[in-house]
């Protein structure tokens, strides 16, 4: 990394900190405005404790419920470290006791189970790297604005490693009964009022039985951080993050999708595009796998280089349940494209890193674009289809840099 880039990165992190001080009246939407006094009722982890474990580049999008992420230029890692992993709570962050934690499995099963966490951890486990991304990741890029967490155009995703068991192994232990078609997950988080319903989401059985759909207790080799679901969570890789219920304590096998506000009112998109600004049509469908998407993780916006140097463009690409076939990079705002080098294929649901190195021969602005294509011929669009709740922003990312005379 050049000193110039490092300086730019530090400047950005420093500015983010200043915004966080709150005492400074910075016009426009700043972190200071986004942060409100937190409610820290008994049994919850205060935001200050959660944020102390996050990188300086971590931007809080809302304090209640706690949501935040780092933008693409701070995601330049093969494996997302804990301090860069996005946070999206629906309710408060519960402070749970692993020693007392029990996983209950019920519904259309031969034998309902109550598995203490310690017993679950003795089952054959494995570690894999998988993508998680909030359905609303990138929402702020939609025009007109959709309500909901104002995720930056980049960020709101991460690809750490997870350790645990296949959900399928637990379901096989319980034994599926005839008619089993969906699996619902519920966690131990709670809201500010007793009337707040639990966050419960279900996935179709085929995805639930896929080997990489896991019940995990570790992230990047250590216990799950409290805000990421300690002591137990689901990981439904490649799908909208809301399917991956945190603080998991209940699994219910159903004959139909779970009925509840987090299935029927949120995480839904129209079957066909609607007029921007319209409300969700009655026949909207639930969100499942993410479409193909990429981020540029190097360079960062506004970074400066010198003529005669070399530019390394680096990023990550993923495609929900599918694989990445190729990533093309443009250094002239989309007039011409060059195929980037893809890193070796890793775990099934891991993002694919890409890179391209070019000499810098002329001064001026360089507009870098990246366009990922999946193995089904699915390619990133220039602008994502507008939808009322602002999900699945997956448009071609753009980063502008400046090349100075030598």
């Amino acid at each position, binding site marked *: 990394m050049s000193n110039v880039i490092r300086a730019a990165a530090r400047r950005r992190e420093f500015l983010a900190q200043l915004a966080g001080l709150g005492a400074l009246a910075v016009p426009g939407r700043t972190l200071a405005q*986004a942060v409100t*006094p937190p409610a820290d009722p008994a049994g919850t982890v205060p935001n200050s404790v959660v944020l102390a474990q996050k990188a*300086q580049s971590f931007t809080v999008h809302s304090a209640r*419920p706690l949501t935040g992420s780092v933008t693409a230029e701070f995601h330049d890692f093969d494996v997302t470290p804990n301090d860069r992993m996005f946070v999206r709570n629906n309710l408060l962050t519960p402070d749970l006791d692993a020693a007392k934690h029990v996983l209950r499995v019920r519904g259309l099963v031969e034998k309902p189970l109550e598995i203490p966490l310690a017993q679950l951890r003795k089952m054959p486990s494995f570690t894999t790297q998988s993508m998680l991304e909030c359905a609303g990741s990138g929402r702020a890029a939609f025009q007109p604005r959709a309500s909901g967490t104002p995720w930056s155009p980049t960020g709101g995703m991460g690809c750490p490693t997870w350790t645990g068991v296949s959900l399928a192994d637990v379901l096989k232990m319980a034994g599926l009964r005839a008619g089993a078609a969906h699996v619902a997950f519920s966690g131990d988080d709670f809201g500010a009022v007793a009337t707040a319903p639990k966050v419960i989401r279900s996935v179709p059985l085929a995805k639930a039985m896929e080997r990489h759909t896991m019940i995990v207790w570790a992230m990047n080799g250590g216990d799950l951080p409290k805000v990421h679901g300690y002591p137990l969570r689901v990981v439904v890789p490649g799908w909208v993050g809301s399917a991956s219920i945190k603080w998991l304590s209940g699994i219910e096998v159903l004959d139909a999708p779970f009925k509840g506000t987090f299935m029927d009112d949120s995480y839904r998109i129209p079957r066909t595009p609607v007029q921007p600004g319209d409300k969700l049509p009655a026949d909207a469908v639930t969100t499942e796998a993410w479409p193909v998407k990429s981020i540029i993780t190097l360079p960062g916006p506004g970074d400066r280089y010198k003529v005669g140097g070399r530019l390394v463009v680096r990023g990550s690409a993923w495609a929900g349940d599918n694989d990445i076939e190729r990533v093309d990079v443009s250094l002239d705002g989309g007039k011409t494209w060059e195929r980037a080098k893809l890193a070796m294929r890793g775990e099934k649901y891991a993002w694919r890193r890409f890179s391209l190195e070019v000499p810098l021969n002329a001064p001026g602005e360089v507009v870098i674009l990246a366009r990922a294509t999946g193995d089904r011929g699915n390619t990133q669009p220039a602008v994502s289809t507008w939808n009322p709740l602002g999900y699945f922003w997956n448009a071609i990312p753009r980063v502008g840099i400046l090349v100075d005379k030598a």
Partner: protein
Amino acid sequence: MTRLSRPLASAASTALAALALSATAQETLVPGPGAELTQAKCAICHEIGYVTRAPQSRARWEEVMRVMVQRGTPVTPDEVKIITDYLATYYNPEGPSAAAQAASAQAAAAQAAADPVTQLLNRNACLGCHAVDKQVVGPAFREIATRYKADASAGVKLAQKIKAGGQGVWGQVPMPPNPGLSDAEVKLLVDWVLAQR
């Protein structure tokens, strides 16, 4: 390769995060008919930025309010109507009409002229969960005054509850802390609550 070494994000960022979180400036809604009720109800569960940053059409606000009732907001159907009208009037993509702006100016003047206790109650979303004479989420102010009428240390206890939050006296629904209130403001509120018998 890391863009930022871990030590940089150590003690300094912890202190900054704590500072940022102790900032008491909560965004407020533009004054207008229903603004106080809207602020009080919405702020129970989420910050007001969720309302202010994304103006919506009336149809979308109706939909949002329907969902918020599903999410457990303690509101009556009449209150839903007042809140929806307020949001559709002041937070729509075209902005408030001339008439709505005039009503807003009037409401702002009334707010400024309101007594200090009313201002404090409105500004801190107290009325989202409490009313004078009936239980909403938390106990009625009258019930509190009655319970503590013979308690010589009531002032100290209530001041502590308002500042630090509480749970268990009236039920298991927690009362959030209000660290931004000054001692004088807390005293004003405590005296007022205890006078509600």
